[in-house]
């Protein structure tokens, strides 16, 4: 006991804790999503059910971001908070390290959900926290931004499409809508509604079309051959 006490005293004196936790970022369509930041994703209404109550988070995209985040650290976990955000495991079958390192949490109410997100973000080993953020207010998102900033985790909040006008402290806000795909791969249009490190976005937010690669379990930009430029198509005709 005496030895362990002496060691702890020495540790305190030496104080090796770094002033800054090393950060990284995850790239999506050329936009850097900073680790230690809150990023919001507005999903789409479900094909069945009530449009306000039944909405779908962009699971393919979130799973891909989780995969990219987890690749940055050797020991890490991903927290999926809110039953709506629990991924269907076969979606992650190509990325078994994500599946093996996933912790699924199902808070019963909004206050427990906020607490669970906050606790997960304050965990040094949690590389990504993916959560259902339905109903969160501006103070809530500020609290989460502070927690993410202090511990360096990637906080991805999925929100219903009806909450676009709600205020938030998120670093980036994205809207994801399904796009008609000429191939067998599902496509979505990603619109960047806000980016704190960029000047105020115009009325026409920058947008990208991205598609789901079934075979590799990845989100990627469509191949140019699959989506020729409009002028080129007209010429060909």
């Amino acid at each position: 006991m005496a030895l362990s006490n002496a060691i702890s005293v020495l540790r305190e004196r030496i104080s090796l804790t770094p002033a800054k936790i090393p950060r990284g970022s995850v790239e999506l369509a050329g936009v850097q999503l900073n680790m230690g930041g809150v990023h919001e994703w507005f999903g789409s209404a479900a094909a069945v059910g009530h449009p306000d109550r039944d909405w779908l988070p962009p699971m393919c995209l979130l799973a891909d971001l989780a995969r990219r985040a987890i690749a940055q650290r050797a020991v890490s976990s991903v927290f999926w908070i809110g039953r709506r955000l629990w991924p269907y495991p076969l979606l992650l079958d190509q990325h078994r390290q994500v599946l093996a390192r996933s912790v699924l949490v199902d808070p019963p109410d909004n206050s427990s959900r906020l607490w669970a997100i906050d606790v997960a973000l304050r965990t040094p080993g949690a590389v990504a926290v993916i959560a259902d953020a339905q109903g969160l207010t501006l103070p809530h998102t500020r609290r989460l931004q502070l927690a993410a900033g202090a511990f360096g985790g990637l906080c991805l909040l999925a929100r219903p499409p009806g909450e676009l006008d709600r205020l938030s402290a998120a670093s980036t806000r994205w809207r994801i809508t399904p796009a008609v795909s000429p191939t067998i791969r599902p496509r979505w249009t990603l619109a960047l509604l806000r980016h704190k490190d960029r000047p105020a976005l115009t009325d026409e937010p920058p947008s990208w079309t991205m598609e789901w690669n079934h075979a590799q379990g990845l989100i990627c930009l469509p191949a140019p051959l699959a989506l020729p430029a409009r002028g080129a198509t007209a010429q060909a005709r």
Partner: protein
Amino acid sequence: MDLAHARALIPHAGLLIEPYRPARDAIALEQLAVWAMRWSPVVAADQPDGMMLDISGCGHLFGGDKALAISLRKRLRKLGFTARVAVASTPGAAWGAARFGPAAGIIIRPGREREAIAPLPVESLRISGTVVDALGEVGIRTVEQLMAIARSSLPARYGQEILRRLDEALGQSHEAVLGVQEAEAVQAHLELPGGTTQLEAIELGVRHLLEELIRMLERQESGLRRLDATFQRLDSAQICIIVQVSRPTRSGKHLWSLLRPRIERMNLGYGVTGIALCAAGVVRIAHAQATLLVEPESACEHEAAIDQTIDALVGRLGANRVCRLLMRESHRPESAAWAAPLLDCPRAAPARLVQTQTLAREACQRPSVLHTQPQPLSVISLSPDGPVMSIAQAGDARRIIASIGPERIGGEWWRAREPQRDYFRVQDERGRWLWIFREARGLSKSCDAAGARSDSSEWFIHGEWA
């Protein structure tokens, strides 16, 4: 008896099927050996299916060796075990007589081992299967036949093991019974005369007991998986707080962080007169090398932090609300995966993933969101097996611009009357990719004015790519 045979003999509803888990069976046998220490202080679990009790000097406490054996068998039967019991002066003779002797049991008096084991087969000597086969080739089936052979010739032909086992059975060589050790109960108790309603006093008492518990665990080089805190109230009511952790720990700080919020929410009534802490699930934990300079970003630190977060989540939300994903070998989409409570399947163990090519191929075609219950929808197609033209759900009709399928998924044969499903991946005019299926019970026959067949009751939407 194999499982198919058992299923044929017993109706499906009356058959309880459990997977064979040797590791869990071994643990259960160890626990049974600890339970059997009521008959003898030295009990060994003889894996995989036996127990060895050293009853030297214990028989008279139960009215003799025979009464002890009867009592043991009766109590085991009450627990649901069918046991064969033999009493002998050597472990080797008892082992052989219990397994190959009379089913009703046998008591071999000291000095009578030779004649007791003589008619038994050579397997009763605990020799390896290869030696048994080698003996069988020359017609030696019983111990009596074996003992008739000159001792000096046995080692050269069958190895040293056979003589050692024979001597152990006959008492010419000593064999000790290495009993299981009952773990010392790790518990601490504090009386509060007169009782108190002050939360601070109760918290101080719990912290004191926790420190005591940690010291006991340190002495045993162990950690706990569960901590039971019992509070005795003045009105004779007992409040029990159970704290579970995802991996064995003896960190007082961590345990206190889990206990404290529960104590704060506790109803103290007219006062608390006693506090007891008891550690359950005590297991040895690996030694960790103490280091002077700890790297804050080290893997161990991260692992420990994640575990503590999981424990905090379980403590507040409940064990069933913190899960991990596991997969089953099933083609049924809703049965292929399930979420298991994390405390029941520690993160250290790898996720049980199905490694088949089939599933990997299926995964490529599975949606990102699977509805808990398939939702019925109306479908219009040009022909019964033709491509889907449009779908409608709750009055919302959408044209289908792409359709891939069908992919037929049959019902599992052991489940009664599960219909086959034909799954289609379809893209509607808004760009959504849906996963719909038709139950293969039958197709509707109605036709609309345009001549297209309408199928309104057998179609369901099961998932979506979102």
